[in-house]
């Protein structure tokens, strides 16, 4: 039996240059396989988190993406401090770490030739949280869709509202949904792609009201946290609770699409838009 087919790489043969552990099943997988499949585990089909730019890279046609409103960044409306420091410092750190200015990247581009407006959330930026800046960028993206009659696609990845901005973060739910409402009235398609995780204030606003709600396999999609619910109902929850598959069964997801097929399928769906 060749070494690479042994059930577990032994410590001796493990090399961090070649191997990595799947964050989900914890099996050893080739780094190269992980990268080639765009962070999908070949053993357990776990769909790892993508950065906004990685997502744009595998979704939009090469060189087609034009970013919009890239200069928007967080303010600190409440002058917020918690036990670990100030919101200001947190955002500076996030900006430095990610190279992004907010938790979403927005712009236009084409998918196999079809023009779309996209907003792609990035979980690395403060957990993909919905802030004033993030909400503004999403609203402007939907306004751009509205003005240009182009379909809107939002890729969600978020822990929810960014509480450091207090009530203003909550209001972004209403603000982004008001943008979606205008698209609805003009019959412009809005596709929502829910990726791991899409929870809290993002699940309770634009992410779940797509004309078509698409999910990646195994994504956590939730309103309330699992622990909060377990405390409320004093019961263990089913294993697949709040996954893409669970939501499909309960009628809230139109279709689950594997990352490797996402671009093709998005194009197929958009090609049905007749106007």
């Amino acid at each position, binding site marked *: 039996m060749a070494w690479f087919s042994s059930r577990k790489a032994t410590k001796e043969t493990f090399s961090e240059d070649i191997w990595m552990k799947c964050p989900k099943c914890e099996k050893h997988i080739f780094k190269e396989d992980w990268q080639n499949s765009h962070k999908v585990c070949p053993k357990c089909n776990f769909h790892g988190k993508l950065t906004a730019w990685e997502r744009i890279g595998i979704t939009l046609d090469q060189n087609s993406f034009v970013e919009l409103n890239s200069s928007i960044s967080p303010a600190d409306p409440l002058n917020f401090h918690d036990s670990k420091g100030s919101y200001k410092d947190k955002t500076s750190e996030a900006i430095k770490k990610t190279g992004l200015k907010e938790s979403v990247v927005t712009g236009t581009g084409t998918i196999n030739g079809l023009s779309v407006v996209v907003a792609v959330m990035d979980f690395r930026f403060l957990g993909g949280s919905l802030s004033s800046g993030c909400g503004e960028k999403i609203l402007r993206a939907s306004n751009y869709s509205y003005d240009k009659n182009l379909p809107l696609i939002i890729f969600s990845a978020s822990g929810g509202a960014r509480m450091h901005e207090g009530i203003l973060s909550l209001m972004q739910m209403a603000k982004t949904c008001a943008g979606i409402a205008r698209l609805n009235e003009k019959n412009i398609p809005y596709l929502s792609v829910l990726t791991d995780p899409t929870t809290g204030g993002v*699940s309770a606003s634009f992410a779940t009201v797509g004309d078509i709600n698409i999910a990646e396999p195994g994504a956590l999609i939730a309103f*309330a946290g699992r622990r909060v619910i377990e405390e409320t109902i004093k019961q263990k929850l089913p294993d697949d609770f709040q996954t893409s598959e669970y939501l499909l069964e309960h009628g809230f997801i139109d279709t689950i699409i594997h990352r490797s097929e996402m671009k093709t399928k998005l194009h197929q769906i958009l090609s049905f838009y007749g106007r």
Partner: protein
Amino acid sequence: MTSTKELEKKLAALMKSPDLFEKEIRDLKSEIAISRGGEKSLTAWETIQVARHKDRPTFKDYVTGMFTDFIELHGDRRFSDDLAICGGFAHLGGESVMVIGHDKGKTIEEKGDRRFGCALPDGYRKAMRLMRLAERFGIPIITLIDTQGAYPGLEGEERGQAEAIARNLVEMAQISVPIICTVVGEGGSGGALGIGVGDKVMMLSNSVYSVISAEGCAGILWRDGSKAPVAAEALKPTAESLLKLKVVDRVIQEPSGGAHSDYAGTFEALREAVLSELRPLKKIAPAKLTKKRFEKFSAMGIYNE
């Protein structure tokens, strides 16, 4: 109820060993603040206690004390009749309206049936059905917000709590009759906002409105639930703060002593405020109304660019 004076005497005693009685002193200070009610000097945490006060008027109190001819309408036409949200036709100072609000209940039994005003998706869908009904009848919508938040249970997730709230946010942006929303007690997160998108959004002076409960925020950002008073300060959930942030249009002063100490005075103040906002709204053409509502919420948020 203990008088303010007695409470202050107790406080003076504890203050002799402030280190020993830290928690007791804080609680007592809150209690004194609440017993005073409505005064500017309340901290955010104290205001939260007033907003949650057990004697504060609930939906049914408003409906019977402030409105007339209430005709309750039930059901979401899909699954159930969630009593945590109540609504129906009513008259307010001669105006025909649809009034909808969270109902925390008065008796123990009612509170249980209503999950203390924490609604299921069915409740939000019922609210939307009634709003569309108001649109058909051509009458304005008045919502009264008073909830800790949407109910965080298995049922809620199963039936799409997130989708139900989100759908309301979309549809409330489209409704072609005037909508006036008032936070009358607790405005808890998405569960509050789910009936909170209006042409005018108001708050009673001792109500609070927040993206997360102070306790929840303290648990996450301080990793210590008992830091809720600190988190409360940081979250700025009071009416005054929200007015400054342009999230609410108007703060309605409660009678001194707070809403719980003077129902009639509270109803009168709220009635006057609603009516004075309603009359100009009724004159706006539907298309302009929804456009202005869109612009209002578009403008919310503070960011750098």
